[in-house]
């Protein structure tokens, strides 16, 4: 598991970037948040997005289109990959452990703010919706591409950027990446916002971070609407493979 890798990294350094505030335990809150969101996506949406691609290719989407119920709903929920849910529990354990470390440390212990505790699950939900939207958008392209076997790889490349604190991109040419994955494909907000809110005191949040947090709500909505549009367009172009 990659937690071992990070433990090694933190043997060499105290934090991810000087002055970013992401020390070992803060980063483990971040990592736990990544696990939680990824496991939610992989449990509930990943198998369905892959299945959706396959339905398009094989022409079996026909039946979903015949049902008097929203097609996006029908294709988004039929399968659940329970095995992937184990990472959710691992995430919760890591989160609890790291928060315990943060709140009990001698030097400036973290005081849990009830607003943070309320906002955390909300932003987890936002992040999951953003990920779901990216995934459905990618899967919908199967309609035009015919066959989309590397969906999972592509998904991995995009979401790879969401796995680290956004501060690391804010130097040099990283800023271009930061802007792209914050404003165009907002995967950088997915883990960063809830992790930042939980791992560090709210009163140290910069106004820029608060703006990003507000933007994350808007981004969630926009992402979902965009994916919905792509989905509807895809259904219009659906060809229903020969039978």
């Amino acid at each position: 598991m990659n937690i071992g890798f990070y433990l090694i990294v933190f043997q060499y350094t105290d934090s991810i970037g000087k002055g970013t505030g992401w020390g070992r335990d803060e980063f483990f809150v971040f990592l736990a948040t990544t696990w939680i969101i990824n496991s939610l996506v992989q449990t509930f949406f990943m198998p369905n997005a892959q299945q959706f691609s396959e339905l398009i290719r094989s022409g079996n989407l026909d039946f979903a289109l015949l049902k008097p119920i929203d097609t996006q709903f029908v294709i988004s929920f039929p399968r659940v990959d329970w095995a992937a849910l184990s990472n959710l529990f691992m995430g919760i354990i890591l989160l609890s452990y790291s928060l315990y470390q943060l709140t009990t440390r001698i030097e400036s212990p973290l005081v849990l703010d009830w607003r943070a505790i309320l906002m955390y699950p909300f932003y987890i939900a936002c992040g999951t919706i953003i990920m779901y939207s990216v995934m459905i958008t990618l899967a919908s392209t199967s309609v035009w591409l015919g066959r989309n076997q590397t969906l999972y790889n592509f998904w991995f490349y995009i979401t790879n950027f969401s796995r680290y604190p956004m501060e690391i991109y804010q130097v040099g040419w990283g800023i271009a990446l930061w802007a792209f994955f914050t404003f165009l494909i907002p995967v950088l907000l997915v883990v960063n916002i809830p992790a930042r809110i939980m791992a560090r005191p709210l009163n140290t949040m910069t106004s820029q971070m608060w703006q990003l947090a507000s933007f994350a709500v808007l981004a969630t909505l926009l992402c979902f609407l965009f994916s919905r549009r792509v989905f509807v367009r895809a259904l219009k172009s659906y060809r229903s493979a020969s039978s």
Partner: protein
Amino acid sequence: MPMALIELHNLQKTYRVYQKKEGLRASIKGLFKRTHKDVQAVKGINLQVEQGEFVAFLGPNGAGKTTTLKLLSGVIHPTSGTASVMGYTPWERENDYRRRFALVMGQKNQLWWDLPAQESFRLHQQIYGIDTKQFQNTLDELSDLLGLRELLSQPVRELSLGERMKMELTAALLHSPEVLFLDEPTIGLDVVAQHNIQQFLKYYQEKRKITILLTSHYMKDVAALCKRVVIIADGRIQYDGSLSGIIDETTNRKLVTLQFANPITDALLESLKHFGDLVKHEAPRVTLEVTRDDVPAMLTAILDAHDIDDLIVEEPPLEDVIADVFARVSKASEEEPFPDEVS
């Protein structure tokens, strides 16, 4: 004028299909410059179907039958033209419309493969919002009619093809659709299963007075079920009328079988060929295909000259007549100098 239940006006569907020559070089070339061909699956169909009709679509593979049914069920969008089914435009996919029709495809299955059909039926009940009591009554009725009672709790993958098809039909009829589209529902089934499904459809349609459009390659299905036949070939309607009318309209030939009392000599065979084409010679019988108007004169001449034990005058087999129609259409379309091709 009141609208018919199903109305199609100049409905067209063109698929853009990627063309690739064989080999690696062509594959690489395909990454940069793609050649497409526009395939016109449906080239302008006009059709009206009234409530309660049972209409068969006949046509060779690739004629556009299935595409037409997919357009009517809103699975795909047309390239141009209009369609209305019960006042709805199918490809707008309104939930109200989708609650009122069903599509059954012999080649695709919608039931969950690893689960008993019963489970899929329950899901249908929820999706269509069918009242539990009504659901149970409908399911009981359908499973009795189709003899499925014992099989409902068996995983779908353990069913025979015929049993599975009956389950598919049941699934499609649970919400009591007013319009039913059947795309080759008897494909690959044995004679008994085919017959069962025919009988069931006939009974169900007469009882419920629903409107059914059926495609099939089995003339028996069509003859047993449909008064009206639409022949589609090359994306267009070639014939629309009664089954027996196909013969009157498309062929003027009759089959005449003669059973001779005396041995058939070569000279006799030669003389018979003046009347028509020799189809079969199995002593003591000879079968000739003769132009309809010539039949009386021929019979008079032969009965005068020979001792005849038995005599049959009949229509040519329906399959042959329809195969002739298909062949004529495909020959005519080959003569068009590929007007559809673009790159």
